[in-house]
């Protein structure tokens, strides 16, 4: 039926494995599917362009991919840092540093001047620090590579962190914290993270910080946070676009000439404590639609079970309307516009959750369906056909990871940053193919715990179809 083969070698396959998707076990259920099963599709011939990896003298790892189709240039730096390394009493420090690095200009170029220069040449330099990584990006036209690179390097090495820009950013963050409770889904996600992780673990915090911690952050904190992490030996670069490799390496060496290798010290991040507990949380908000999140701790990005878990989740609730949870909550019963499950992976244990929004009057019904589906996928092996559907989707969508040279390079940078095998893309299809029905059931049982799940609901429980405490004792969270 689906005889799609990437002509043996969508990606370089040293062992020469053939990636043929097993035809579906069952017969096509509809007349349309039967006709489609007779279609012959030509093999897709595509060899992804080869990305080069070089290490410069100062320790910078650089991925390069020349692409001369359009006069464009992109460079991105991935820096090992993140909100996990900030002290709890200064929560928000990493994120603030990541923002003001750019918004505050550099020692030699004030922010206004930088804004004018970049915007006039339609280029951009943007910076950010997230929970577990930092990044700096430059996008410029080919003709502006030199000017752009200079600013890019200057922002990485010499940000000025002027007081007035720090104040401005603090005020913006304070306003956005003030507004968090206007958005039911934002409340739900924030509170869910807070109840899921131990309050001492940095994963339990918002990376934006709180009204109290933000005011404690000083300019000196930001300068030293930046100085500690933004080092050549702590960064991975990705370059794509209309450039010449040798020339660009010369240019990189020139603009980063003053940037020295330095040992980076990382504060210890405690291990996520594995705690599973059945519990129910409720946040009152005057809305006519309940916002539900339920779940528990998930997996690490580097989990050896990553592929079977992703396929399992596709079948359970990640694979759009065709997956089980949205299939029942949305498609069968019309209870929600959005209903899905997801594994958010992180360096340590991430989050597994099911989310949906449903009118107050069907809140318990929707939660019950999700719980039933979690139990079902643990108890009963998935159909062969469901697994084939999931695998074919992963395999046939693979080509869309290669649509632009910038996205190809970004993936290579990401793979090395996450500590995944450097041949991750080359082995991706095989890793999908080898997953069996037994694997799916094994990982469902190992990583899903419907009996020890946390259920959090934002809404107006007076209108719910059944009392929320039918799922357990309700802990009420008061909004400040």
């Amino acid at each position, binding site marked *: 039926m689906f005889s799609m083969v990437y002509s043996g070698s969508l990606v370089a396959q040293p062992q020469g494995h053939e990636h043929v998707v097993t035809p579906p076990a069952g017969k096509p259920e509809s007349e349309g599917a039967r006709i489609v099963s007779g279609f012959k599709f030509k093999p897709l011939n595509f060899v992804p362009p080869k990305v080069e990896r070089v290490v410069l003298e100062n320790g910078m790892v650089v991925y390069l991919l020349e692409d001369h189709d359009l006069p464009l240039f992109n460079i991105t730096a991935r820096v090992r840092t993140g909100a996990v390394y900030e002290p709890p009493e200064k929560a928000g420090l990493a994120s603030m540093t990541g923002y003001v690095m750019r918004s505050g200009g550099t020692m030699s170029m004030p922010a206004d001047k930088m804004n004018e220069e970049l915007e006039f040449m339609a280029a951009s330099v943007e910076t950010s620090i997230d929970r577990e990584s930092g990044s700096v990006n430059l996008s410029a036209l080919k003709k502006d590579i030199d000017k752009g690179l200079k600013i890019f390097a200057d922002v990485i090495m010499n940000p000025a962190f002027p007081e007035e820009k720090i104040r401005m950013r603090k005020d913006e963050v304070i306003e956005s914290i003030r507004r968090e409770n206007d958005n039911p889904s934002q409340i739900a996600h924030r509170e869910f993270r807070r109840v899921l992780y131990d309050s001492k673990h940095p994963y339990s915090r918002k990376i934006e910080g709180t009204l109290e911690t933000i005011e404690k952050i000083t300019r000196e904190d930001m300068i030293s946070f930046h100085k500690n992490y933004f080092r050549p030996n702590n960064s991975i670069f990705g370059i794509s676009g209309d450039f010449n490799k040798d020339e660009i390496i010369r240019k990189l060496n020139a603009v980063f000439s003053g940037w020295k290798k330095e040992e980076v010290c990382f504060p210890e991040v405690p291990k996520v404590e594995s705690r599973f507990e059945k519990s129910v949380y409720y946040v009152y908000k005057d809305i006519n639609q309940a916002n539900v999140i339920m779940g528990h701790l998930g997996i690490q990005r580097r989990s050896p079970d990553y592929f079977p878990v992703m396929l399992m989740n596709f079948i359970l609730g990640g694979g759009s309307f065709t997956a089980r949870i949205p299939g029942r909550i949305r*498609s069968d019963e019309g209870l929600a516009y959005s209903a899905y499950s997801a594994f958010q992976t992180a360096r340590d244990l991430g989050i597994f959750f099911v989310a949906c929004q449903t009118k107050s009057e069907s809140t318990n019904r929707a939660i019950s369906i999700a719980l039933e589906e979690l139990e079902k996928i643990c108890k009963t092996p998935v159909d062969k056909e469901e697994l084939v559907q999931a695998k074919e989707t992963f395999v046939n969508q693979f080509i869309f990871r290669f649509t632009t040279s910038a996205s190809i390079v970004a993936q290579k940078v990401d793979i090395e940053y996450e500590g995944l095998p450097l041949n991750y893309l080359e082995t991706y299809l095989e890793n999908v193919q080898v997953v069996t029905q037994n694997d799916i059931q094994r990982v469902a049982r190992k990583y899903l715990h419907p009996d020890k799940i946390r259920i959090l609901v934002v809404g107006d429980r007076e*209108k719910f179809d059944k009392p929320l405490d039918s799922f357990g004792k309700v802990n009420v969270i008061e909004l400040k």
Partner: protein
Amino acid sequence: MNKKTLSSIFLVITSIALFTGGSSANSLKLDVKEHVLKNGLKLLMLEKHDVPIVCLRVNYKVGSVDERPGITGVSHLFEHMMFKGTKIFGTKDYTAEKPLLDKEDDLVTKLSNERDKGESADKKRIESLEKELEEVRKKLRELVVKDEVFSLYLRHGASGLNAATSTDGTYYFCDLPANKLELWAFIESDRMKNLVLREFYSERDVVMEERRLRTENSPMGLLVEQLNAVTFIAHPYRWPTIGWRSDVQNITKTDTEEYFKRYYAPNNAVIIIVGDFNPDETVKLVEKYFGDIPSQPAPPKVKTVEPEQRGERRVEIEFESNPFIAISYHIPAIGHPDLYALDILSSLLSDGRTSRLYKSLIEEKRIAVMAHAYNDISKYPDAFTFIAVPRAPHTVAEIESAFYEEVEKIKKSPPSDWEVQKIKNQLEADFIRDLNSASGLANEIGEFEVLSDWRYINTFMDKLSQVTAEDVVRVANKYLAKNNRTVAMLVKKENNQKIKETKETNSAKKPALAH
């Protein structure tokens, strides 16, 4: 359509197959090949062979502007129904299913008539009808192949599989590996020919949930809905694309079927293909699958013209949220020469950290955390809109006067050459960047074809380069005038438990879908 889409249109020198033409920047055009079938179906093709994918769009020239009070939201509901299958997809046996679907409709009508009697309704009759309906639905569920169109596309590698409805058009998106073109032609032509409205009532409920999510419980969604309802007093742009709550709840299958026949005809549709394909073979393929679909009489144009506004309008929305402000001004429809200067004006006001509103409202006065201007270009005259988020303790009133102050400055003295050139540079670069994406190009070609003509893209830069600083002053004076504006403010509601009681009683009475 907002400026974001527009800003991606530009002309550029490049060697790839996307373009024809010579060496000067303004002489290059998107090399779109056009083919029209006998039944009026238009095919727009742009080759881009770097990656073996095809980005496919089927756009219908119908949106909420074509609706009428009573069925507002029908275009969008129909967009959802398009994924529910046809006579051959999504069903194990259509001949067995058809009488059951008819029976379901009949029972739903009877039930709704009985319930409408209110106090005097026959409760026993309602109960027995409900029971009967549940029986029918049980049988129907056994015949359905769940979301088959969606799952077939996915397993063949579809990416970006989605659909969208706007005031002016309905858009179906599907990117596929290049070898799957025939699968797409088969499914899409079948959807145009043989659509079946199955799972209609549950999907109507899904749309109600979408409305609660995007509008009723979202401050920004509510603000925009109310703003439009006051900006337009006659023209259909005044109702929301998702539809008014009571209309969505009561749309019938008959309303939807009539709509389908009239607007989902080949002569009201356009197909866009961007990517790695052979145009001649593709024309043959499209002829083979879509060629036999009969055309329909041309759908009627919207005749209602929004009367000239005779003074400022103001609307206040109470909601449990921090404040927002939006101000709109009427502008002309696509094709009017003033729109290019208005594009520059909106960029001048709010694109980037060197824009006027960013520097003044956010950086200097520090009264806002977001301030943006949008030039919404549509098929019929739409609006130029300003939206801002105040920073406490600053008020929407402060934002309003600061915004007028900036507008007055532009009305009195032209923007600098540097500013105008910066904006032109950015629009040019945005266009080059967008050429990277076959998907983005397919969207743009399709969107402009729905509004008027995809060639808008090829003339855009020429037109834009002719705009002078004085033109910007002129259009600011002409359109951003007090008597042409509507001001909407969302203000925090007192947290009163009693207010909320009245809001949902209506919907609570409606039949819940049988579990």
